[in-house]
């Protein structure tokens, strides 16, 4: 069954306090080389038949992500 992956992350201009908390923990652990952390969501969709890009993009942009605050990336299966 084809697998479609959707990644959602806050837009750059929206501050991400969760990512900043992770960054703080990394600093305390001695990982000084990490400059920034942005936390997001990763959706894995099993779809029946040939993936319909238009429908999947609509799913990604209208439900999985809130376009007011989030950017979304759709990854269709490659063969």
């Amino acid at each position, binding site marked *: 069954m084809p697998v479609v992956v959707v990644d959602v992350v806050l837009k750059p*201009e929206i501050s991400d306090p*969760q990512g900043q908390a992770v960054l703080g923990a990394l600093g305390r652990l001695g990982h000084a080389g990490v400059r920034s952390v942005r936390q997001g969501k990763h959706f894995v969709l099993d779809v029946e038949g040939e993936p319909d890009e238009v429908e999947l993009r609509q799913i990604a942009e209208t439900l999985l992500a*809130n376009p*007011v605050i989030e950017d979304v990336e759709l990854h269709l299966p490659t063969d």
Partner: protein
Amino acid sequence: MRIGVITFPGSLDDVDAARAVRLAGAEPVSLWHGEHDLKGVDAVVLPGGFSYGDYLRAGAIAARSPLVQDVVAAARTGLPVLGICNGFQVLCEAGLLPGALTRNSHLHFRNRDQGLLVERADTAWTSSYAQGQTIVVPVKNGEGRYVAADADLDRLEGEGRVVVRYVGGNPNGSSRDIAGVTSADGRVVGLMPHPEHAVEELTGPSTDGLGFFTSVLAAVVAA
């Protein structure tokens, strides 16, 4: 005068909202999110809580429920709608109000009595107040930080769409201390603080919240 209060799976404050409606002098009507039935109510309140456990994003799944689709359609023709806390998140997710509510900047759940400056006293839900009045009602949220693009915030401010603003400290890092906003026609209002918890001396920090519920009575009569 009949005012609907929607219950979603995970709603917490629907009973308090119904009580506030009754204290204001109207009849509360229970509405179920899964039914296409507004029961002919004159106005609708979306209460606080954690609909669908805040899964995906706070309010996101509730915003796609059958009844909220009906609320969106009815609001377009002037039905007064009030979203409190999770209800505000639902209205933003449904596209009835601009912006979005995200994780508090300090990452803590914040629960306290909160000062609010009433900047619009001419909406369907705030006409009982005076413009410039300060009120105190409880605030309690973990994802109450109001955000929008800077250009959109400028536009909202320019159009006078900020209904209430935090004073005496911003509890969640909301942009420009915004606590609540309204639709262009002033019929739909959403705010993170809880006016329904400030309607009786016995249980609230004040009775300042009752004005939201008395305001809509006047708005419905005038319509």
